[in-house]
């Protein structure tokens, strides 16, 4: 791995992170009134009001507030929630597993299925697989994800009660680790399946287009002429399109996180997305800011990881330190 290239990617991620923190700071200070006006009762004495403003650090100059804010964001001390008056970070940590499980599982599932179907479509052009790919990609671009999920919920949780209608775990949760695990899987199955169903169409179309082009190139023809088995030819072609696939992996993360927020709300999962929604609709600014920061952090981290793996996959980057 070329150190200079890696340092550049890291720097770019840090820049995005800095932009997110600045945006976050501005966003939640732009709203009408005061950050604490939602929790200050008009009947409070002036001293009490001042006291509260001091607790949330709102009596200092803006530049100093910003420095304190940056420090807090970097050390994950998000302060107290306006509503529950509990530390925001604890609440977020309890909700992180569901979000991570949902996004990573559906990403892996949609990528795997999309790549498989895309290769299949590139190999049998004009057949059923290609038609499915073309249809699915058109459908996913125009179907609101939550509508698909609502219909699935209606079908498989109401009409045919296979899956639970809502929640991350049954209430009360079953005893025993195994039972708990299966209960969790049963609750997460429909959200994960539906979220990956929304994503795989774009993947498949992209992989198909790349694969068709790669299979038409000279090296693929050469490989076939040498009499290599079909699997080997496909592997050769696939190896050359791996870097752009990683790029699209990278670019699909923000959309997936947005999708996860809505998915959690559809299925009432105990995740960061529902936390953000509750915080936003309850005007709980520290909590909303923290949840947004965490989601952005997940995205930035995924981007960086994708960049690094791009470096491993593309020999041009690995050896010479240049992208393209």
């Amino acid at each position, binding site marked *: 791995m070329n150190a200079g290239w890696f340092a550049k990617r890291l720097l770019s991620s840090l820049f995005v992170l800095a932009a997110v923190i600045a945006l976050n700071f501005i966003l939640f200070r732009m709203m009408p009134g005061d950050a604490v006006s939602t929790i200050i009762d008009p009947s409070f004495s002036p001293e009490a009001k001042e006291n509260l403003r001091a607790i949330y650090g709102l009596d200092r100059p803006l530049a100093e507030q910003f420095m304190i804010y940056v420090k807090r964001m970097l050390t994950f001390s998000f302060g107290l929630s306006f509503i529950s008056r509990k530390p925001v970070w604890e609440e977020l940590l309890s909700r992180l597993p569901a979000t991570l499980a949902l996004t990573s599982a559906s990403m892996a599932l949609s990528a795997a299925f999309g790549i498989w179907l895309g290769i299949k479509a590139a190999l049998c052009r004009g057949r059923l697989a290609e038609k499915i790919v073309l249809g699915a990609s058109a459908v996913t*671009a125009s179907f609101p994800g939550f509508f698909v999920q*609502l219909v699935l919920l209606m079908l498989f949780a109401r009409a045919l009660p296979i899956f639970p209608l809502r929640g991350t775990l049954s209430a009360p949760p079953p005893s025993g680790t195994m039972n708990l695990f299966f209960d969790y899987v049963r609750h997460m199955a429909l959200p994960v399946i539906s979220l990956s169903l929304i994503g795989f169409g774009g993947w498949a179309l992209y992989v198909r287009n790349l694969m068709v082009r790669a299979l038409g190139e000279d090296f693929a023809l050469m490989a076939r002429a040498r009499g290599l088995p079909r699997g080997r030819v496909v592997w050769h072609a696939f190896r050359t399109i791996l870097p752009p696939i990683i790029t699209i992996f990278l670019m699909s993360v923000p959309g997936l996180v*947005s999708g996860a927020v*809505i998915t959690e709300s559809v299925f009432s999962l105990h995740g960061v997305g529902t936390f953000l929604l509750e915080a936003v609709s309850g005007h709980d600014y520290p909590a909303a800011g923290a949840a947004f920061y965490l989601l*952005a952090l997940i995205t930035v981290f995924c981007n960086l990881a994708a960049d690094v793996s791009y470096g491993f996959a593309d020999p041009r980057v690995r050896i010479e330190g240049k992208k393209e």
Partner: protein
Amino acid sequence: MKALFLRKSAIALAAIALVGIFAPLFAPAPPQEIVGAPFARPIWWKSGKLPAAKSFDVKIDGIEFEWEDEPPAIFSLYGRVTADASSEVRVIWRTPRKEYLLERLSGSELYWINSDGRDMIFKQALGLPLVSRSVDHLFPSRGKYSLSVEGAKGAELRLLLPGERQGLLGTDQRGRDVFTLFLYGIRTSLIIGTAATLVASLLGVSLGLAAGYAGGLCDALIMRAVDVLLSIPTLPILMALAAVWGKGLWQLVLIFSMFSWMGTARSVRSLVLTLRESAWVESLRALGASRGYILRRHLLPETAPILLANVALGVPGAILSEAGLAFLGLSDPRLISWGRMLHEAHSFGAFTQGAWWLLLPPGLGIVAVCLIFLDMGKFLEEKIDPRLG
């Protein structure tokens, strides 16, 4: 251009837009008016003997009718009765099994009646069990029913029996007509979709032109902003902005356009980068044309085709964003939109009722409008770059 207007999707879009504009003419009632029972099925639904909504005008001589179906969803009687102050007015409901004295009034010349079968006081006055549906007792079986007003001089009453079937697409949890809401939703979706995309395209074109032609620091700044905005999840920001700035129609348009100009800016910039080096732009510069003149008169028209396709392809994104925010409950509750309808279906019990008619119309509406714009965008793209076809 003519081929675009003759395309099926363009004709369908024009038809939908017209229906959206003239929605009040097609709709049976204003959208906020409650016309039926909650969760009434569509009128064409045929299962068992679910009654359709009925209403009767009751004059002084009363009414009589046959009832063949199941009980209606709601029994309500309202209007006014005039009488002599000395006489006693009795409003009597006769069922095949039993007689109910609905009202006994005296001591005045004019009475206003407003009774609803769901009121506790109504049930108590008739001696009905308080935790049951009063309509099950008021409509015990099929047969002849009558309502009569005795001892009055004049009566202008209305007996309203909203049924379990109502309207083309049924009713929602508050008893509003879903078909009306659906028609009004067209307007919101189209306005937000097109307005947000237009503003975003304007932003994208101007920033893309600036970045591509000026280059240097300006280019670096704009492209960095594009990178950052493309690599953070937009929905959380949109949620926060909608909560902070307000949820009205035009605020939403502004918010969506702020976060969807990046794609246009990128493609305009790359086009301008190649045009800038071309011979004719260079000769314009050599002739002494000012920067503003070249940008306005020569480069801007060149970007028009890209822009047109970007607008058509961007509208579905804006419509889906609006639907997403409204679905999360972050839009103005008074603003009727398809996303809002789905939100209300999801959070007010459509699932426990199995009310698919609350789910499918708005969802399929969004899908249809998005597909139409995608088709037009694809068509325009192929016109610009025939290799794509």
